[in-house]
């Protein structure tokens, strides 16, 4: 175990809460002089936005000469990008931090992500963590680590605050590249911790987004996923989300665009029309959360089921096979059986091909924590099961529509002669990988439906 160095001198006069820097404080960088590159490992929990931010950090570190390794390959640096959206994610984040700290006693352990915001002080007091970096400073982790290895004393609080500082993704852990256009949210839905941990809604400049798109395509990505905390709220110097989307679609190149997850408010006809564009994939993850207007109001969701219905119907009247997926929370405080039945009816009616079902769990610091009439765990379990079963029925119905039809499939991986990928409509497809390569798009005729439950997929053959 390396000796810890007391760094509470000098700098702490400016930054009194200096608890965030602990382990790995030796000044002899593990790889210095050996000619070997330093090794960095990443662990990511939570949402697509976190994934994107990790991908961008991977690009940063590899450009700076670090070697990307797994946790069990003695990394010199471990970055844990945490999530705090549910109690389970807190637990997972904690476990991952412990694993990361155990991976190599001397490793610099950087903890970032939403948990770093929500439990900053607690984490800063943990001896197995070197740095705790809040979300708005996450993009500068490389500078922090570099400074550390060259003996510079730099506290995370000294890093610039910029949620859009990320470089375009070059080397990613995935085939698709996410593109962050927005951060934060000030909707304050009663169950959600995000406004507290990601701060208010801010949008990236149009030029910076487009520049990032161009570079990402140049870096070889064939699919871009537009990401943010609440991307429908994009607004930059008079440009709304639709304006930005149109500009992204106009960027020359052979690529396709997906939209990650959207809140169901404020779409006009123009948004629907944009899906005529060949590059824009006909799938939306539109978060309904509940099929009961009363529950939606208690959640502080500012739309009602009828408005949601109008959106779904508007899309499907133009694009009949349009794929909608959603999030549903069951057992929200005060949810009656009748209100839950309304949710089931909505899930059936909107024929979501996938429902991400969350059992409501109390999130400390959210408004819902203080709501009355919490639903017993047993009831939540039963409701969650019902939604999942219905979701599986829906999925089968939805995927069946595609048998006999064709899809352009982006190949994500090839395993033992089988290509795996997703069609335009975000339907999972597998087919024989004769002469095909990863990260290419092939037209596939869909022949059959296989698998069970959420693992259902379409089989096909290349045309």
């Amino acid at each position: 175990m390396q000796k810890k160095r007391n760094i509470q001198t000098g700098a702490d006069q400016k930054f009194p809460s200096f608890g965030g820097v602990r382990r790995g404080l030796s000044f002899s960088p593990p790889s210095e002089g050996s000619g070997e590159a330093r090794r960095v490992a990443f662990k990511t929990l939570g949402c697509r936005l976190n994934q994107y931010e990790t991908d961008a950090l991977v690009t940063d570190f590899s450009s700076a000469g670090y070697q990307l390794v797994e946790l069990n390959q003695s990394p010199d640096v471990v970055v844990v990008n945490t999530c705090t959206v549910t109690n389970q994610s807190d637990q997972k984040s904690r476990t991952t931090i412990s694993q990361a700290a155990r991976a190599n006693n001397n490793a610099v352990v950087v903890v970032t992500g939403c948990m770093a915001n929500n439990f900053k002080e607690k984490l800063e007091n943990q001896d197995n963590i070197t740095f705790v970096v809040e979300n708005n400073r996450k993009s500068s982790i490389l500078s922090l680590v570099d400074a550390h290895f060259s003996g510079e004393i730099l506290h995370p609080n000294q890093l610039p605050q910029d949620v859009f500082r990320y470089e375009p993704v070059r080397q990613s852990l995935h085939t698709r590249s996410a593109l962050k256009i927005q951060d934060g949210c000030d909707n304050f839905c009663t169950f959600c911790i995000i406004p507290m941990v990601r701060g208010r809604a801010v949008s990236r400049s149009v030029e910076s987004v487009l520049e990032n798109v161009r570079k990402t395509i140049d870096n070889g990505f064939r699919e871009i996923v537009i990401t943010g905390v609440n991307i429908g709220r994009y607004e930059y110097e008079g440009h709304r989300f639709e304006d930005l989307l149109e500009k992204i679609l106009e960027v020359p190149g052979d690529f396709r665009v997906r939209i990650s997850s959207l809140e169901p408010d404020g779409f006009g006809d123009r948004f629907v029309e944009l899906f005529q564009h060949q590059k824009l994939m006909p799938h939306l993850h539109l978060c309904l959360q509940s099929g009961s207007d009363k529950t939606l109001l208690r959640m502080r969701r500012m739309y009602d089921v009828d408005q949601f219905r109008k959106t779904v119907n508007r899309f499907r009247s133009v694009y009949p096979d349009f794929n909608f997926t959603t999030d549903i929370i069951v057992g929200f405080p005060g949810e009656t059986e009748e209100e839950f039945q309304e949710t089931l009816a909505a899930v059936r009616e909107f024929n979501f091909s996938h429902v991400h079902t969350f059992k409501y769990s109390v999130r400390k610091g959210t408004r819902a924590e203080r709501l009355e009439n919490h639903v017993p765990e047993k009831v939540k379990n039963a409701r969650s099961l019902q939604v999942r079963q219905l979701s599986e029925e829906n999925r089968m119905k939805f995927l069946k529509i595609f048998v006999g039809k064709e899809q352009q499939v982006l190949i994500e991986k090839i395993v033992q002669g089988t290509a795996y990928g997703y069609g335009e409509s975000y339907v999972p497809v597998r087919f024989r990988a004769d002469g095909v390569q990863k990260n290419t798009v092939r037209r596939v005729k869909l022949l059959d439906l296989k698998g069970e439950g959420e693992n259902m997929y379409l089989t096909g053959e290349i045309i």
Partner: protein
Amino acid sequence: MMSFIKPEIKIDESFYKVEEIRQLTDETFSLKLPKARFAFKAGQHISLGIKGDYQSREYSIYSGANDENLEVLVKEVENGYFTPKLRKLKAGDLVEVHGPFGKFGIEQKDAETGKFVFIASGTGIAPFRSMVRTYPELDYTLIHGVRYSHEAYDKHEYTNDRYILCTSRDKKGTYNGRLTNYLKGCTFAPKTHFYLCGNSDMIFDALEILKDKGFERDQIHCEVYF
């Protein structure tokens, strides 16, 4: 060559000193802070924190966009977590303010020509006072539902013909009974902009009544407190 980042020198602008506490009823008071250090639109809210407490709460801004003080209206909730602490604040104490947040507001062009109906329960009147102070020429009707007539916070600021007080527990209101019952008997011009603010049960009932009267959900804006 490695380039290090210079530390940012940032003075924390989010702390405000309480200037005055205006007691409006036994339970309700307004917290007067110095002028806002940010621009906001009438109807938006802030999040308020007390030093040393990990929790914060949202409060609609009670003052107008051009007023000399930033003000919020707070009702102390029995057995509440935050409001009993707010209640204990004194002039000179520090609070932490973040914001402004939210989309609950009116468009400038509508403010000049539109017809507005504001429907509030209890402290849900807060954003409407801000709107009325910000747009003095506004063509509005404010329907305020409370239990007792003394909860008509700063009533004198609204002209009599625009302020309708519905009291459910005494007979001193413009209308004696529940706000929603009053609403059922109302007629409104077709293009009215509706703004609803307060507790979710009232908002749910009011929405149903307005939809039954043929108004579109898109012309009804809601701000739910709890």
